[in-house]
C-alpha cells in the first residue's frame, strides 16, 4: 500500500466540491432554450459565473467572462497542486498560441493584441524573445521549433508553416513531459489527443485536395495511429479510413463522425465526438481519490464547459437555429 501518494488529498477534495458547480446539462439546455442572448446570460447568472455576468456591460463581450474564467481556473489549480509543473504542462498550449500570434504579428509588422493570459511565460517576455529572435529561455524543444520557424519563414513566407511547426512541438513537448512525470494517464491523454487531431487533419486535408507531402507535414508524429499509415490512405476513399480503423479504439468516433461528414458535409459531429472521446478517457482518472488525475479532468471539464457556453452565446447572439447549437453541444459528464 503506497503511503506517500496522498499529497493531492486536499486538492482532490476541493476539486470534488468544485465539480459540483460545473454547469450541468439542464442548465445548458435552459440556456439553449432561452429566447435571446440576454435571457441565456441570465441563466448563466444563476451559476458560478454570477459575479462576472453582473459586471458585464454588453452581451457581446461574453468572451471576457470565459477568458477570465480559464485564467482563474489555471491559477487556482496551480496554487493547490503540490506539483504545479503538471498543471503548467497543460498551460503550454497557451504559450504556443502566444508564440504563433507574436510571430505572425512580427512578420506582418503589426502589434499583437491576442495574447492569452493563461500561458506559463509572460506575454511581454515572449514578445521580446520573438522580436530579438532569441529563444534561449524557452525549453529545449520549443526553442528549436521557434528557431526553425524563423528559418523557414525567411525562405517560404508561409504562415501555415508557423502554426504547423509550433503545433508539432507542443505535442512533442507534452508527451515528453508526461513521460518524464511517469504518468501513463497523461501520456495516454496526449496520445489520444494527437490521434484525434490527426484524424481530423486527415479528413480536412483530403477535402482540401492537398497532396501527401502536405499531409505528412500537417500530421502530428508519434500518435498511436502511425502518421505514415494515415498518409498512405490519402488517395483512397474515406470509407477505407473507416474500415482501417474499425478495430481501433476510435472506431465509433471515426465511423460515426466521418460518415456524418460525408453525408452532411459538416465536421461538427466528428469534432464533437472527438471531444467527447477525451471526456470519456479522462473519466477513469477522475475517480482517483488521491492522484492529480482529477485536477486534469477538472481542467478539461472546465474547458468543455467554456466551449459549450461560447457555442450557446454565439448561437444566441446570431440567432442560429437551436438544432445547430444542440448538435454541437459537447457531452457533459458530471
Amino acid at each position, binding site marked *: *500500500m503506497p*503511503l506517500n501518494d*496522498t499529497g493531492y*488529498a*486536499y*486538492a*482532490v*477534495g*476541493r*476539486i*470534488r*466540491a*468544485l*465539480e*459540483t*458547480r460545473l454547469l450541468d446539462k439542464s442548465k445548458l439546455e435552459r440556456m439553449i432554450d432561452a429566447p435571446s442572448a440576454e435571457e441565456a446570460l441570465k441563466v448563466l447568472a444563476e451559476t458560478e459565473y454570477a459575479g462576472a455576468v453582473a459586471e458585464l456591460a454588453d452581451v457581446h463581450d461574453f468572451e471576457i467572462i470565459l477568458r477570465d474564467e480559464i485564467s482563474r481556473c489555471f491559477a487556482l489549480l496551480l496554487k*493547490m497542486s503540490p506539483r504545479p509543473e503538471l498543471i503548467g504542462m497543460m498551460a503550454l498550449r497557451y504559450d504556443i498560441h502566444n508564440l504563433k500570434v507574436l510571430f505572425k504579428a512580427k512578420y506582418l509588422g503589426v502589434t499583437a493584441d491576442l495574447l492569452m493570459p493563461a500561458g506559463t511565460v509572460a506575454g511581454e517576455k515572449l514578445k521580446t524573445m520573438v522580436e530579438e529572435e532569441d529563444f534561449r529561455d524557452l525549453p529545449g524543444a520549443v526553442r528549436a521549433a521557434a528557431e526553425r520557424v524563423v528559418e523557414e519563414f525567411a525562405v517560404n513566407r508561409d504562415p501555415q508553416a508557423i502554426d504547423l511547426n509550433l503545433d508539432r512541438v507542443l505535442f512533442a513537448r507534452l508527451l515528453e513531459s508526461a513521460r518524464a512525470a511517469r504518468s501513463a494517464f497523461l501520456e495516454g491523454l496526449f496520445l489520444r489527443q494527437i490521434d484525434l487531431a490527426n484524424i481530423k487533419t486527415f479528413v480536412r486535408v483530403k477535402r482540401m485536395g492537398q497532396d501527401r507531402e502536405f499531409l505528412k507535414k500537417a500530421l502530428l508524429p508519434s500518435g498511436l495511429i502511425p502518421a505514415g499509415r494515415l498518409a498512405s490512405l490519402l488517395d483512397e476513399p474515406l470509407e477505407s479510413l473507416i474500415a482501417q480503423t474499425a478495430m481501433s479504439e476510435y472506431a465509433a468516433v471515426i465511423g460515426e463522425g466521418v460518415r456524418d461528414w460525408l453525408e452532411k458535409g459538416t465536421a461538427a459531429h466528428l469534432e464533437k465526438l472527438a471531444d467527447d472521446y477525451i471526456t470519456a478517457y479522462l473519466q477513469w482518472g477522475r475517480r482517483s*481519490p*488521491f492522484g492529480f488525475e482529477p485536477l486534469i479532468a477538472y481542467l478539461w471539464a472546465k474547458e468543455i464547459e467554456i466551449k459549450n457556453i461560447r457555442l450557446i452565446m454565439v448561437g444566441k447572439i446570431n440567432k442560429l437555429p437551436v438544432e445547430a447549437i444542440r448538435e454541437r453541444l459537447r457531452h457533459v459528464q458530471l
Partner: protein
Amino acid sequence: MFGIESGIVLALLGAALAVGLAGIGSAIGVGIVGQSAAGVVTEDPDKFGQTLLLQALPGTQGIYGLLTGFIIMQRVGVIGGGLMLDLGMDKGLAVFMAALPIALVGFLSAIAQGRAAAAGVGVIAKRPEELGKAIIYAVMVETYAVLALLASIMLLFGIPLP
C-alpha cells in the same frame, strides 16, 4: 538485564507497540481524511459536520490500541500496583505476541480506512445525501481492526499470569 526478568520488558514493549503503531496508523488515516475534507470545506463550508464524521472513523484503531495497552498494563500490574518484575521470559513473550494483532492490523487498517474515508469525502462533496453509504464503505475496514482487537484481547486473557 536490569536485575529483573526480561519478561516484563517484552510485555511492556507489546503494550507500547499496540498503543504506538495503532496510534500512528490512526493519526495518518485521520490526517488523510482531514486534508481531503479541508479541500471540500474550502469550497463548501456547510459540509463540515458530514466530513468530520468521516474523519473520525480511522481514529478508532488508536483507541483499540490504547485499550489493548491498558489491558496489558493491568495484567502485568502497571495499573493497580504490584508490577510483576519477575515475569518470566516465556510469559512476557506471550503478552508481546498477544499485542501484535492490534498493533499491526490497527496500523495498516487505520491508513486503509483513512483512504476509504477520504474517497467518501469525495462522495459527499457531490452527493451529501449519500453520507450513509460513504460511511459504510469506510466502516467495512473497521471490521478487521475489530477482529484484531478481539484476537488480542482473547490472547491476553488466555495467558495465565500470576
